[in-house]
């Protein structure tokens, strides 16, 4: 039984709802809709759907909605589906498409893969990334267990799968640390590349900062430093394409 979580407050999605419902009917995957409202977040709706024993809970929308549904479904028996609308490339690559029709076709064929999730607190998980952004570089220590790194950092991105590291099943985070936030301005294109960025692949990290910094998943602040982020291996059942993604060399 399918349960679709949709944000009809988003005009683009609201316009498409009827068309999406028709496609669902034609694929034989019709189900119930949960509509996001100020009183019911995507997370609340997904939790409710789990308690009502829906076997498949589908997030229709962007990263924010997808991450909230993933949070609710961590370590649950229900499978998660994604119909990406304005979602980032990493998520589209993960399920195997960025198209609505193709995403519904993937739901119909129902190949389930268990993937890793990031965990910040007992109830805060993330599918894609958690971020610390400071206004200016501040003194920070990241403890990876066998080694620690220290320095003045402005931005720390803890990713569970990125454009280069596409694996959500490798038991590792990509942790990217920047002394200064990278701006994508036109003039920066001509600047000499700097070597101030650091990248580590680890399964957990403790972060301490000189002053408390906010750790965000999407727009939501989920913790303040000092904090620990760990990886929950194979914590989410996700419906993905049956077609093997082509590698660059193939």
């Amino acid at each position: 039984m399918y349960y679709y979580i949709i944000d009809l407050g988003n005009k683009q999605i609201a316009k498409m709802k009827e068309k999406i419902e028709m496609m669902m009917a034609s694929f034989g995957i019709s189900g119930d809709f949960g509509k996001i409202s100020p009183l019911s977040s995507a997370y609340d709706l997904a939790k409710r759907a789990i308690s009502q024993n829906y076997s498949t809970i589908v997030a229709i929308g962007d990263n924010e909605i997808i991450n909230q549904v993933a949070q609710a479904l961590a370590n649950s028996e229900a499978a998660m589906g994604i119909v990406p609308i304005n979602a980032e490339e990493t998520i589209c690559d993960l399920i195997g498409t960025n198209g609505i029709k193709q995403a519904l076709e993937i739901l119909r064929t129902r190949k389930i893969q268990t993937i890793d999730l990031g965990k910040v607190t007992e109830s805060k998980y993330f599918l894609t990334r958690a971020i610390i952004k400071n206004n200016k570089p501040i003194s920070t220590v990241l403890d990876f267990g066998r080694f620690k790194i220290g320095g003045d950092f402005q931005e720390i991105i803890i990713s569970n799968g990125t454009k280069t590291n596409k694996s959500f099943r490798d038991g590792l985070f990509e942790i990217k640390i920047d002394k200064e936030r990278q701006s994508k301005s036109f003039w920066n294109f001509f600047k000499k590349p700097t070597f101030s960025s650091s990248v580590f692949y680890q399964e957990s990290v403790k972060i301490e900062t000189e002053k408390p910094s906010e750790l965000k998943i999407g727009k939501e602040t989920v913790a303040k430093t000092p904090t620990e982020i760990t990886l929950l291996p194979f914590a989410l059942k996700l419906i993905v394409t049956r077609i093997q993604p082509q590698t660059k060399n193939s």
Partner: protein
Amino acid sequence: MIRDLSKTNEKDTVVGENVIVTGKLHTSSNIQINGHVKGEVSSEGTIIVGKNATIEGPVIAADILIHGTVKGNIVAKSGLEMTSGGKVFGDIETKSLSIQSGAIFIGKSIMGEEKSKISPDKSKQEKTTGKENQPEMEIE
């Protein structure tokens, strides 16, 4: 020639400039060091020590390329290259060694297929009977 890590998409670890690492940094993939490491660095792939980088501790990898400074013993299972700005204060064990003019190497080197004689976690090496260079060597 040891390859340039910036052109790969693998899970390469990068230590940025102005970053201090303390402890044992080990990965199965490549490591690029541009900052300062106090402790052991080991990789099953390639380690590149950047121009402004300093490592104070043993370095162990298949291939090692040194543009910066290493104060510690080095075991490069396949090959080691030192470019003109490279400085090594410690012993080197490798099969293939390339040192450019201008590099500084103060220590002993053991080359060939022999079993490891350099203890990477000791600053002083025990007496060996293998092919050894002079104890102190400076190429400028």
